[in-house]
């Protein structure tokens, strides 16, 4: 997969991301190009030590099983067979899948509509709104989840007071059947503004003369938005969805924080990441925890890769 950046290609280089043509010219020139290795090597050392090596290490760990009785022995893909028949892991996967199906469209819709509205206005109200909608991105996820857990809480939250006024019982936001919506709300609040700014930036880079042409052809504002603006920013939408997908499948922080207050609704294996965490740090089953982590990693990678492949026409990735 190569990505073409929009950078103007230097006269001799091919488009970035492709293997460059053999450097022309002298041996001297070729020797100079080797300096590139020097510049990239510090990063590559860290990359090897903290990304490539841990991945291989996790895979290696997953091929072994250690028990007190038998010690550590090689068990091949047994751990994977166990994982993919393990109801706790499968339920977690289905759950983050369901979250992805609800959460990503919710965030995208809020972000897209807000960006389109902002793009059609130039008042101080719209500038201020843009800043405020983006603001939650500056709040750490843990703190965001903490804040919402207070707001959801029957003891501290505003809901009890509000519903008392009309003489009704407040709904519980932390019950097993409502926790899903409560978590969707937290994530939507936290990230929509960020995605909005991405989409808004893409909208601002469209040449406005297109709108003029559309108007002359008799398109109204709504048609301009849906038929011209949205197709023209599809590449940034693909980016947003990809990042949201990678984030959602790793769902961890928000349910962990909410679990403090909603033990009954969120168990220790609520998401695959939480399951891996509790296997490793509560039960010291490092081999099986590595299996779960690695399996999740592969699934996320494959899922996002597949999504990028399916949308390569829209995103311009080749």
């Amino acid at each position: 997969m190569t990505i073409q950046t929009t950078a103007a290609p230097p006269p001799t280089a091919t488009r970035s991301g492709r293997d460059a043509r053999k450097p022309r010219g002298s041996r001297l020139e070729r020797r100079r190009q080797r300096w590139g290795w020097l510049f990239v090597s510090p990063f590559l050392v860290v990359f090897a030590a903290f990304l490539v090596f841990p991945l291989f290490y996790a895979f290696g760990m997953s091929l072994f099983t250690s028990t007190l009785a038998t010690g550590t022995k090689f068990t091949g893909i047994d751990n994977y067979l166990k994982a993919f028949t393990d109801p706790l892991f499968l339920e977690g996967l289905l759950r983050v899948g369901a979250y992805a199906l609800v959460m990503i469209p919710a965030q995208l819709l809020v972000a897209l509509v807000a960006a389109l509205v902002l793009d059609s206005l130039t008042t101080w109200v719209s500038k201020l709104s843009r800043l405020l909608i983006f603001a939650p991105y500056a709040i750490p996820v843990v703190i965001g989840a903490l804040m919402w857990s207070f707001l959801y809480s029957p003891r501290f939250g505003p809901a009890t007071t509000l519903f008392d006024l009309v003489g009704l019982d407040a709904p519980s936001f932390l019950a097993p059947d409502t926790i899903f919506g409560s978590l969707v709300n937290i994530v939507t609040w936290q990230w929509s503004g960020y995605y909005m700014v991405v989409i808004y930036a893409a909208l601002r880079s469209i040449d406005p003369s297109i709108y003029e042409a559309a108007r002359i052809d008799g398109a109204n504002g709504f048609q301009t938005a849906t038929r011209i603006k949205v197709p023209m920013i599809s590449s940034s939408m693909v980016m947003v969805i990809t990042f949201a997908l990678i984030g959602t499948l790793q769902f961890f922080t928000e349910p962990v924080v909410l679990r403090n207050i909603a033990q009954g609704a969120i168990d220790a294996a609520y998401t695959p990441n939480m399951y891996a965490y509790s296997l490793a740090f509560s039960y010291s089953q490092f081999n099986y925890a590595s299996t779960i982590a690695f399996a999740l990693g592969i699934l996320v990678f494959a899922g996002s890769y597949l999504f990028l492949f399916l949308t390569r026409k829209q995103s311009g990735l080749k």
Partner: protein
Amino acid sequence: MTTVTGMPSRTPRGPRGRSGREGGRRIGSHVFLIILAIYFVIPIWWLFVAATKNTSGLFSSPAFWFDDHFALFENIAGLFSQQNGIYWTWLGNSFLYAFAGGIGATILSILAGYGFAKYRFRGRGAVFGIILGSIMVPLTALVIPTFMLLSQYGLINTPWAVILPSLLSPFGVYLMRVYTQDAVPDEMLEAARIDGAGEIRTFFQVALPLLRPAIVTVLLLSVVGTWNNFFLPLAVLTDPNLLPVTVGLNRWTALSNAGAGGEQVWNLITTGAFISVLPLILSFLFLQRYWQGGLTIGSIK
């Protein structure tokens, strides 16, 4: 054409004459935006109000308005006395990890971005492709193996356990590469070489000054990324004195919710959370351009 100057590229637009029904639509649009803005801001407002209440005020007064008793300074004093002021240790740790990890990650990104953008060494495309692909590897999948590797080297429960993995920023490398390609003209590098400057001097004196806006953006993204990290420090740190503020506050919350035997420090949690977001909110307001800088290159064409 995308720019990574930290500002969305503005195309000048004349007065908008879209369709006839401007007036009505605009009021509708404004109302819509204001409702959205309120939704996004009200939890932050709540946090500010809650930081000024003591525990009984948190229970009894309206959630979105101040209590009669203004307890912010008592709460701050409480943060100093609770467990000998461990909260301030946490805050200091957060700063240390975020800046050490963030500055390190930025330096590595600048060097690698320049190397990928301006040299055509053998294997460049393949290596860069792997780095791009790694953006799709969920970093949380690496936490458990990273924990095991670090514990083999006796680095668990040291600041290094958080700082070293935070040096990794493939996205930062990608940003710097894209920006360097645009902002540093090859002709300038050639000219410097012809004048007899070596490769390293050329980089420091010619390229580096041109990269300043992107450097600030990458620095901001990596500092904030480390500051916000939760899974990694949760896994590799158990010593209460080494925790960053995110993990520490979560621990207090768990204890307060457990109730029995656990001390209830609700007012310290809200005040602590409020103080910990202040630096971020301030940097957000003053460095807005750079906060958005990393986002504008989302449009790959």
